[in-house]
């Protein structure tokens, strides 16, 4: 009896092992199937697309529906898989680096340089030259973020901007401020903030926790103050120059009108303070309207452009996603057709999670879905993008550390940025 038991156990375990091998073998077969050149005539080509699942809308379904007419037109089968952001980030790179992965990649703007430098994606200039896709149809900053060393690598799919200014009209009225006139300059913003800071409420809330949004804003303020983030060679960071120092100084001056403890907070905490009526103003991406709608549906709020330095321009920083072609794909032409299809005016309105990157589609999308569409559209048109260098994540981390050093009173903006710039330049010239 015991022997039989042992034998059964062994067979179970071997079976489990075999099953493991079997399923992974199956996956390989499927992958190589998708990557192999399409066989005889009439056989459908398969295009694998990885996309992002964000927010509550079922974007995969919308994209699959939109892909149907593409499938008919090109006699192809499109397999769309949607991942949450963190999964897309951690799965896509190993897959592509291993010579596999999807034919069409949806990339966060800040990943593009990395993929391009590693030659995981192909330059699109030749494809662009013989197609209808024009850079002018898309937001400037989103197009710029898709390029690396003067070559286009990825076509903008959707965008968001960090950020716009949200303000509580009722709190403005209570403080004797005109609820239809949000602050325009940095000085106004701080002055209004001081009037609004009373009785345990605050004018706004800055933050410097471990998240990138604060860097997006400080980058934006740097450009707004007339600065540049990188020099043209892409080998030298310029954040330690005067505009960058002013930008960080402004963010740090905001502490006067903010609840204490910026380093423990991130943009979501600042938004929570705003929706719970603890602060009168906050900066957030344009999609923050959805957040306010769910959390504080009765709030009487307005949206304005990001405050600008005296004599400067109101500028935000782009976030968003672009589409690129896997260098290992054997259906590059088809992949390009799909990218064209997904980024044209008609389809953009239906299949994006954020604001469409196609300007014409974006205008309609904003008019339909957002309050203050013109403010947002204006902010998108002028927005800048984060440095498109291959080791951006490491650089953003150094920038964040500099910001945190200033916010904790450890260093002055000038010293902190100088220290960060020295380290970043070392990384850029590695």
């Amino acid at each position, binding site marked *: 009896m015991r022997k039989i038991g*042992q034998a059964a156990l062994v067979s179970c375990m071997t079976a489990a092992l075999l099953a493991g091998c079997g399923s992974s073998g199956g996956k390989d077969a499927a992958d190589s199937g998708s990557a192999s050149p399409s066989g005889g005539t009439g056989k459908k080509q398969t295009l694998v697309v990885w996309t992002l699942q964000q927010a509550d809308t079922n974007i995969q379904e919308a994209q699959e529906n939109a892909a149907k007419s593409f499938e008919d037109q090109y006699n192809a089968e499109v397999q769309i898989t949607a991942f949450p952001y963190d999964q897309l980030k951690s799965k896509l790179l190993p897959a592509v680096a291993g010579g596999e992965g999807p034919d069409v990649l949806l990339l966060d703007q800040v990943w593009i340089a990395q993929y391009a430098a590693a030659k995981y994606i192909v330059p699109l200039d030749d494809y662009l030259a013989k197609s209808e896709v024009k850079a002018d149809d898309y937001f400037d900053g989103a197009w710029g973020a898709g390029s690396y060393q003067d070559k286009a690598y990825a076509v903008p799919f959707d965008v968001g901007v960090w950020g716009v200014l949200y303000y509580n009209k009722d709190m403005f009225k209570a403080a004797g401020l005109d609820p239809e006139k949000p602050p325009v300059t940095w000085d106004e913003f701080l002055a209004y903030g001081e009037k609004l800071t009373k009785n345990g409420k605050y004018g706004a809330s800055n933050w410097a926790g471990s998240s990138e949004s604060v860097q997006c804003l400080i980058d934006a303020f740097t450009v707004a103050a007339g600065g540049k983030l990188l020099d043209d060679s892409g080998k030298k960071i310029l954040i330690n120059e005067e505009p960058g120092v002013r930008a960080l100084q402004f963010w740090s001056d905001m502490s006067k009108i903010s609840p204490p403890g910026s380093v423990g907070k991130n943009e979501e905490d600042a938004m929570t303070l705003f929706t719970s009526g603890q602060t009168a103003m906050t900066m957030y991406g344009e999609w923050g309207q959805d957040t306010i709608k769910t959390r504080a549906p009765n709030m009487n709020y307005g949206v304005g452009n990001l405050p600008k330095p005296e004599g400067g321009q109101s500028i935000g920083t782009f976030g968003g996603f672009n589409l690129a072609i896997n260098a290992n794909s054997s259906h590059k032409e088809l992949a390009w057709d799909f990218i064209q299809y997904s980024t044209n005016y008609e389809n953009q309105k239906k299949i994006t999670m954020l604001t469409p990157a196609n300007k014409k589609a974006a205008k309609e999308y904003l008019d339909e879905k957002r309050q203050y569409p013109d403010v947002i559209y204006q902010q998108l048109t002028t927005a800048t993008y984060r440095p498109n260098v291959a080791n951006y994540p490491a650089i953003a981390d150094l920038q964040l550390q500099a910001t945190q050093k200033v916010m904790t009173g450890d260093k002055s903006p000038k010293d902190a940025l100088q220290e960060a710039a020295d380290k970043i330049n070392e990384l850029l010239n590695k």
Partner: protein
Amino acid sequence: MKTRSTWLGYLLVGPSVLLLAVLLFIPLLYSLQISLQDTDLSHGAPKWIGLSGYVDSWKSGELWKVGKHSIVWTVCVAFFQVVVGLAAALMLNRKFPLRWLVRVLVLLPWVLPGVIAALTWRLVYDSQFGFLNSLIAKLGFGQHATDWLGTPGLAMFSVVLAAIWKGYPFAMLMLLAALQSVPQDQYEAARIDGADGWRQFVHITLPSISGVLKTVVLLVSIWTFNYFEMIYVLTGGGPIRSTHIAPTYIYELSFGHFNFGEASRVSVVSFLFIFLISLVLIRQMHKNERNGGA
């Protein structure tokens, strides 16, 4: 007959050896290999750089900083988890009404899912609405808004406190079981000889539970060294990298910066570190067993 049973033996061991090889040794060797490469994505394919990568990581100072944090973190958390666990076990070993209920309640932190516990601590430490600040105010130490997780000097203390709270019930549970197996007649004999409570504890309780105690110390140290989610959720290694320990740093390097070479170097170093701790502690345990047998 002998050969048959030998074959059966190999057959039975085979799957686990295979599993170990596939899941443990091959990945281990692979990360050792990656740790000898420069995988910075800015130049495409990985370059073989040999041991110079280790030298560079050491020189940049970041490795040493993270190492220091890891040691402070592991020693503080493991030490207090065991001490608090032991104290709790001693108390719960006495008879009092509703003891069963208290025993169950004390286990709560340990059975709570790690991420939820960490998120709860975030609320406790919040500078605006946090429980800790309002508790301090209620105790009469004045209103203030200390940013427990956002102040470089305080952040490590805060995460350590949360981790002790999360893990001590395990030590308590194990030590309570050990305490219950200490023969009562030894205490009776000691009392007749006039030993007070402290002497009974030092000469009877501690020697009797020392085997379990060492196992607990070993397990808790290794778990703490590798304890990821508390720090990841509470501070993410910040502010200004003041709470980065090996696992969170490895995570940031690999999945944040996609620098798998550097991440592997840190992993290899921390692997060696854990290996050494385990070696020392396991030897201690064996010595203990031999003494016990003699």
